[in-house]
């Protein structure tokens, strides 16, 4: 008797889970780097205002 559908299902499970195992950390790294870049951009936006602040008070 052929159990081909069961074999295909099992190998599909293997491929899907390992596919997730490959993709998930790459997405996390990308997310962390994007967050870091946004932080840098926010910091750059705030620096000129901070420098001007003491002058306006004077």
């Amino acid at each position, binding site marked *: 008797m052929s159990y081909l559908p069961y074999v295909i299902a099992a190998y599909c499970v293997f491929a899907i889970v390992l596919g997730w195992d490959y993709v998930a950390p790459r997405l996390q790294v990308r997310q*962390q780097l994007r967050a870091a870049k946004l932080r840098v951009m926010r910091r750059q936006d705030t620096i000129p205002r901070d420098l001007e602040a003491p002058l306006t008070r004077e």
Partner: protein
Amino acid sequence: MNPVVRWFHQLGSPPYFDRFASRWAPWAYVLGLLMMAWGLYGALFVVPADYQQGDSFRILYIHVPSAWMSMAIFALMALYSAIALIWRIKLCEILAMACAPAGAAFTLITLLTGSIWGKPMWGTWWDWDPRLTTELILLFLYLGVIGLYNAIDDRRAAARAAGLLAIVGVALLPVIHYSVTWWNSLHQGQTISLFGKSHMDASMLPPLWWMVAGTHVWFVGSLLSRARADNLRRESGKDWVARLAGATQ
């Protein structure tokens, strides 16, 4: 200083580890994939069907390596956690916590492929057999470690708490291994032995060893990638991460 010792100390530096992981993880993935592809080719197209189980025995070539990985990764996670707890090495905390999702993935594969094999062979998708039940508990332990690590804001305190769970949980591993010996089990006993005599025909073994080696190398890639992501998360406020983000995006 001895070059190996120097390299070990350098690896503790977060920027150095990031460069190391980003450089070697893709190679580990590619090498692991090639080894598994070769193993799967043998498993699906070279090895003859089993005289009793027919083609369904081919599920063994993904089920057995995944089951071994599920236990080996847990042991490694506990080892890293113990080192992190005793010597407070941050990189070991990161590596221990990076083991958990990869180990959970292999445990899930083990349970699902075993279930798919069980339906035609045992006539049921699931049975509360000692081996199956202890493997399910292992999955819950992995999920517990992942959950605990993400539930606490302080990364180092979270890694210590989750690491402690991993160390306690390692007691389950011999129970999983010997469950087929200690209790009357529907699950078959030990068929394949790394060092002793295997109860499988020698012609059926080479694809299995390729798969075992391939899953190990794949795991190295997964471990490095996940550890790199966690390392970046912990170091998110540092200048080197900002420079890296500027350079890569």
